C-alpha cells in the first residue's frame, strides 16, 4: 500500500524542528531513518497529517566517546555505529548486526530504533543493559530520560509529543568486562522471539558488576535484577550462572503471540541468559 497524504517539512536546525513539533504535536511524526515509520505509513498503521523529516538537521550526526561514556547523535545510522564500534565495542557491533539487514542499517538510526521501542528490538535492550539515557529537547527545555524510565510499553515511551530526541547516551562496558549477546529469531534479521545482552565485571575472582537485559520476552525490554543480584559478590561458577539464568525468568510476564507461547519465551529466556552469562564470564578479565 501507499502512505496516506501528509504535509512535509524538512527543518535544518533542532530549533526549527521543535517549533514544528510544538505546533503540530499529536498530528505529527518525526521521520529519521524511516525503517520503522515508513512501513507503518505504508500499512496505514500510522496516519500522521504532518511528517517532520529531521534528516537535514545539522549537528545530530556525531559519535563521541569520553572514557566509557558514549554519546550518539540522533541521526547516527546503525551502520555508522556498527563500523565505529567494530574495533572498540564488540557488544555494540554484535547487537547492531542483529538489527534488520544491511540495507536497513544503512539508513536506520540508532535513536530511531530506541524511540520506536519495539519490545523485540535489540537497541532498546542494549540501552537498558548499558545504563543509557535518551536526551530530548522541546520548547520547554532539555531533559535526560534514563533508559529504565524510558520504555513504558510496546511502542510506548516517556517521550512527550513535542519532544525531539537529539542524542542517546550509553555507558560502554569497561575494557576488562566480559559480554555476551544471544538472540533467537525465526530468520536472521527478524525481530527476536527472545534476546539477552549481558555484561560482567570480575575482580579478585568475584563478580562486582552484572548487567542483564532481556528483550522480546515481555512487553518492554527488562533488566533481570534478581539475576544480577544473585551474581554480584559471587564467583562466576557454573552453578551461580545457572541459578542467575533461572532467576532471569522469575517474575517475568512473558508474552504469547502466534510466534511463541509465553512458556516457550520464558524457557528460551533462561537458556539464552545462561549462554550470554557463560560468554561474558569467559571474556571477563579479572581486574584484581
Amino acid at each position, binding site marked *: 500500500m501507499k502512505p496516506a497524504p501528509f504535509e512535509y517539512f524538512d527543518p535544518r536546525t533542532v530549533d526549527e524542528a521543535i517549533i514544528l513539533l510544538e505546533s503540530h504535536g499529536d498530528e505529527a511524526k518525526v521521520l529519521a531513518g524511516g525503517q520503522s515509520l515508513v512501513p507503518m505509513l*505504508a500499512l496505514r498503521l500510522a496516519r500522521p497529517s504532518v511528517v517532520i523529516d529531521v534528516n537535514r538537521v545539522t549537528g545530530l550526526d556525531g559519535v563521541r566517546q569520553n572514557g566509557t561514556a558514549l554519546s550518539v547523535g540522533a541521526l547516527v545510522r546503525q551502520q555508522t555505529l556498527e563500523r565505529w564500534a567494530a574495533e572498540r565495542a564488540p557488544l555494540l557491533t554484535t547487537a547492531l548486526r542483529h538489527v534488520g539487514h544491511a540495507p536497513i542499517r544503512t539508513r536506520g538510526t540508532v535513536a530511531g530504533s530506541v524511540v520506536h521501542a519495539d519490545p523485540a528490538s535489540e537497541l532498546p535492550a542494549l540501552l537498558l543493559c548499558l545504563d543509557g539515557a535518551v536526551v530530548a529537547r522541546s520548547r520547554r527545555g532539555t531533559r535526560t530520560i534514563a533508559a529504565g524510565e524510558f520504555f513504558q510499553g510496546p511502542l510506548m515511551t516517556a517521550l512527550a509529543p513535542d519532544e525531539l530526541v537529539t542524542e542517546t547516551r550509553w555507558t560502554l562496558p569497561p575494557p576488562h568486562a566480559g559480554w555476551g549477546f544471544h538472540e533467537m529469531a525465526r530468520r536472521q534479521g527478524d525481530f527476536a522471539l527472545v534476546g539477552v545482552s549481558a555484561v560482567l565485571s570480575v575482580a579478585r575472582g568475584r563478580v562486582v558488576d552484572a548487567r542483564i537485559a532481556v528483550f522480546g520476552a515481555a512487553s518492554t525490554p527488562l533488566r533481570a535484577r534478581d539475576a544480577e543480584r544473585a551474581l554480584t559478590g559471587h564467583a562466576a561458577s557454573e552453578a551461580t550462572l545457572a541459578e542467575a539464568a533461572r532467576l532471569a525468568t522469575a517474575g517475568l510476564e512473558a508474552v504469547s503471540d502466534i510466534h511463541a507461547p509465553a512458556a516457550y519465551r520464558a524457557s528460551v529466556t533462561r537458556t539464552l541468559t545462561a549462554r550470554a552469562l557463560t560468554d561474558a564470564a569467559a571474556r571477563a578479565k579479572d581486574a584484581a
Partner: protein
Amino acid sequence: MTARTVRLHVNGVSHTLTVEPRRTLADALREDLGLTGTHVGCEHGVCGACTVLWDGEPVRSCLLFAIQMDGASLTTVEGLADGERLHPIQEAFWATHGLQCGFCTPGILLTAKALLDQNPRPTETEIREAIGGNLCRCTGYHFIVEAIAVASRTRTSS
C-alpha cells in the same frame, strides 16, 4: 499536499521531477522516470526487491520518499550493464542460473554489487548474510549464492 521539485542523479543522468510528499523513491523511479527495473514487492521494507544504491550503499527505495532525495546519486539495475555488455555480476547470474522469474533479481544484483565493492572476496557466510534481506520465491538461494561467489572470482581476476 504541496508538491516539490527535486533533482536526482540516477545512473549518472540528472533528472528533475516534481513529487508530492508521499511519493516513494521506488514509485518515482518507476513511474516518473520510467526506470521499471526497480521492482516493488511488499512496499514495506521486507522483501528487498526495490533495493537500489545510494552513494554506493544499498537502501530500500520503498522506505524513502523522493522528496527527501534532492541531490542524491543513485544506481539502479539499469545502471549495471555497459551498453550491450552485462556487468560481471549479471554475467555470473546468467551463467549459474541465479534467476528464474527475475522479480527479486534487481534488488539482489545491487545488494551483491555493494557487498563485492566493500568485500571483494566474501565467504559463503558473508554472501548469505548480505542477501539475507532479499526474498526469492523461485530460484532458491543456492544458485544465487553461487552466482555471487562466481562474480567475486571473475571480478578479482579481471
